[in-house]
């Protein structure tokens, strides 16, 4: 059935180059209302607040952030499961921001979603075969026997016995259910799959099965993934590039290796430092940056840089007014590496950065074309305002 896909480029031909999805200035605000009969609009939860991103065909873009940062809302908005408040979503050259009805359904056939909770995302009253075949029914693909055959094929593709198609979701374990969810997403031969925390509900020994399955399917079907997760280790493993989100905005975008080797945004540095590494030898060399407080309320985000209320760097620099007054824009610091921070130069090779990753910054990763500060990669510290020992103490 794979040849039924319209406009399908030669497999593998365009990997790397062509832009599959382009999002610019996307905002998704949820209104807060008061009153029962007359609903007064009293504010907005700014879940996604001006995000621009592009996905190249065949790549995996990881989207990380803490709960409430808007990463799931972004993922759903590009599938048009939410109506964007502002901005543009362009899928293969077609503006889909305001599509409706049949035109929208046609586009949705090209993009599918894998959900976090394999218990809640499968209809308990349908057989798993019915669940996997439902997208084919919705899009009226093939005859009944062709669909049945396609379902069998999909079961084999995701590593399930096709004989199980007549069973119900409760008869499967979490990992097997997630395979069913993957098979459903694959059914209509999509180009883009938005995977929203696809492994976080699974036990550790099962997570790797699903991660490997997703990687294999990507190679097999030239899929493009938007991989949304809070677990930086999993995201770094599977992604080509990673975008870090904080309070509705992207604060850093980098090739995944470089994001760990040379994080440039103070929030990314703190996030990386907080991720425990399963190796006591490495752990003893790292020092955590303990951010104070919680993520601010997205209904009333702080002005200027959203992160300034918790930023360790701002404190060190003597609380410059710029952070509060001016919203930092993403700017390129090296090839493919963009950061939204006014003082990004102060982060590179700072004590905090080195302590967070547990070893000196890889000079190759950091210097890929910045040209700015290329003194030999000797001192672990850059001269700076009298550095307090560390905010983590």
């Amino acid at each position: 059935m794979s040849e039924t896909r319209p406009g399908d480029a030669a497999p593998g031909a365009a990997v790397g180059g062509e832009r599959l999805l382009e999002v610019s200035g996307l905002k998704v605000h949820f209104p807060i209302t008061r009153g029962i009969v007359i609903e007064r609009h009293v504010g907005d939860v700014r879940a996604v607040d001006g995000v621009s991103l592009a996905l190249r065909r065949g790549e995996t873009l990881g989207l990380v952030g803490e709960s409430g940062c808007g990463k799931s809302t972004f993922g759903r908005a590009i599938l048009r499961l939410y109506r964007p408040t502002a901005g543009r979503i362009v899928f293969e050259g077609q503006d889909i921001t305001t599509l409706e009805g049949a035109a929208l359904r046609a586009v949705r056939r090209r993009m599918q979603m894998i959900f976090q909770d394999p218990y809640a995302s499968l209809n308990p009253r349908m057989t798993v075969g019915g669940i996997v075949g439902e997208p084919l029914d919705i899009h009226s693909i093939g005859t009944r026997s062709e669909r049945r055959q396609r379902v069998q094929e999909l079961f084999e593709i995701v590593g399930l016995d096709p004989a199980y198609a007549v069973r119900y979701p409760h008869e499967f374990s979490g990992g097997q259910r997630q395979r069913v969810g993957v098979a459903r997403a694959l059914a209509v031969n999509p180009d883009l799959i938005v995977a929203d925390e696809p492994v976080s509900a699974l036990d550790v020994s099962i997570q790797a099965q699903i991660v490997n399955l997703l990687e294999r399917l990507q190679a097999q079907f030239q899929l493009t993934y938007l991989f949304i997760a809070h677990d930086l280790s999993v995201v770094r493993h599977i992604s080509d590039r990673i975008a870090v989100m904080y309070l509705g905005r992207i604060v850093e975008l980098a090739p995944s290796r470089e994001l760990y080797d040379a994080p440039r945004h103070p929030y990314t540095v703190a996030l990386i430092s907080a991720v425990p590494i399963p190796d006591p030898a490495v752990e003893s060399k790292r020092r955590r940056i303990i951010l104070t407080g919680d993520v601010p309320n997205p209904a009333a985000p702080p002005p200027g840089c959203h992160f300034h209320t918790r930023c360790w760097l701002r404190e060190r620099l003597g609380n410059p007014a710029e952070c509060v007054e001016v919203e930092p824009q993403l700017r390129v610091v090296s090839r493919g590496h963009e950061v939204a921070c006014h003082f990004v130069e102060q982060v590179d090779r700072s004590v905090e950065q080195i302590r967070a990753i547990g070893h000196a910054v890889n000079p190759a990763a950091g210097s890929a074309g910045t040209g700015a500060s290329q003194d030999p990669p000797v001192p672990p510290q850059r001269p700076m305002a009298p550095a307090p020992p560390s905010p983590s103490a």
Partner: protein
Amino acid sequence: MLLSVRDLTVRFRTHDGTVHAVNGVSFDLEEGETLGLVGESGSGKSVTNLAVMRLLPQPAGHIERGTVLFEELDLTNAPEASMRDLRGREIAMIFQDPMTSLNPVLTIEEQMVETIQAHRRVTAADARVRAIQLLGMVGIAEPASRLRNYPHQFSGGMRQRVMIAIALALEPKLLIADEPTTALDVTIQAQVLELLQRLTAERGTAVILITHDLGVVAGMTGRINVMYAGYIVEAATTPELFAKPRHPYTVGLLHSIPRLDAGSDEALIPIEGVPPDLRLAPVGCPFAPRCAWRTVQCWTENPALNPVEPGGSVRTTGPEATHRIACWNPPTADEATAGAPLRPGFEPAPPPAGSPQATGPYVLPVAPGNAEVRSEEGAESAMPGSHGFPESPGSGSGR
């Protein structure tokens, strides 16, 4: 010796049969030690500690066998009155979800004062002063006014701080923290772990940290017990366990989690299959059906937890604790690094004919003893032996 658990065996009676939750677990803990209990959902790590506290869900759960000596007192047959006195004062517990472990209809003040007054003869006013002190200690701003708030007015991280404050209110000798940060974001997790580590180190509180996250125990504990299907399968000091893992399950876990600091070509080696059905009485090694190193013996005989290096005396506690594993055919150091058997021609032994594992995948409804199954972690535990699905497409020849 602060705590000494011997041959602890816990069963749950359910409609679908007996769940073999904990199968003869023994471990020791000295004062001030930090011990990690690592395992997946259903491994028995939480049940072990609920049994220590005598808080097993009633009437299904019961301790079938074994002793739990806490400072020479056997907790398995201590009268309920002395258990009640002990809980909170001597052994405190922190749970995963601070929203469900705090009472939503009482203020933080009422809950803290109640805890303090239950164990100490102090006036309500004095208890309140102590509560303010404790909240300040765990880093909650304006503790005096926050005391009048209800749990829902706190964020997840702050609720867990409140739980820590309550747990440490009576200066217990042992703190059992059951997945204390699993529900929290990673930056908040860092805050809470740092707090937990600092406060328990200052007071010399012994800690049992229960978690599925190998990263968390790596930085937080001195010793680790790895649990699988109700057994301790590997016990070692933390540096030793990560440097020289010797049980196939530990090796498998370490290879199946991506590391943040790994090279880009890191390949994940998943552990195939799913955990065993705990309703079946264990035959052979519980990990055998998923193990890449299994031999014929593994299917029929369950190995005991024995020292890796035979001979010499066995130390169960402290930084010199003996490295022990329960395995007939442990991976060599090279194999542990590679994550797979390297012996030429070695194939995992097929299940013996007629064994329950040999009947092939058969899937039954999830049902039994799910007292501890959490929605977040999935219910892999409850799934029967449906191991061995073909991983590669088209390898199944069922059609």
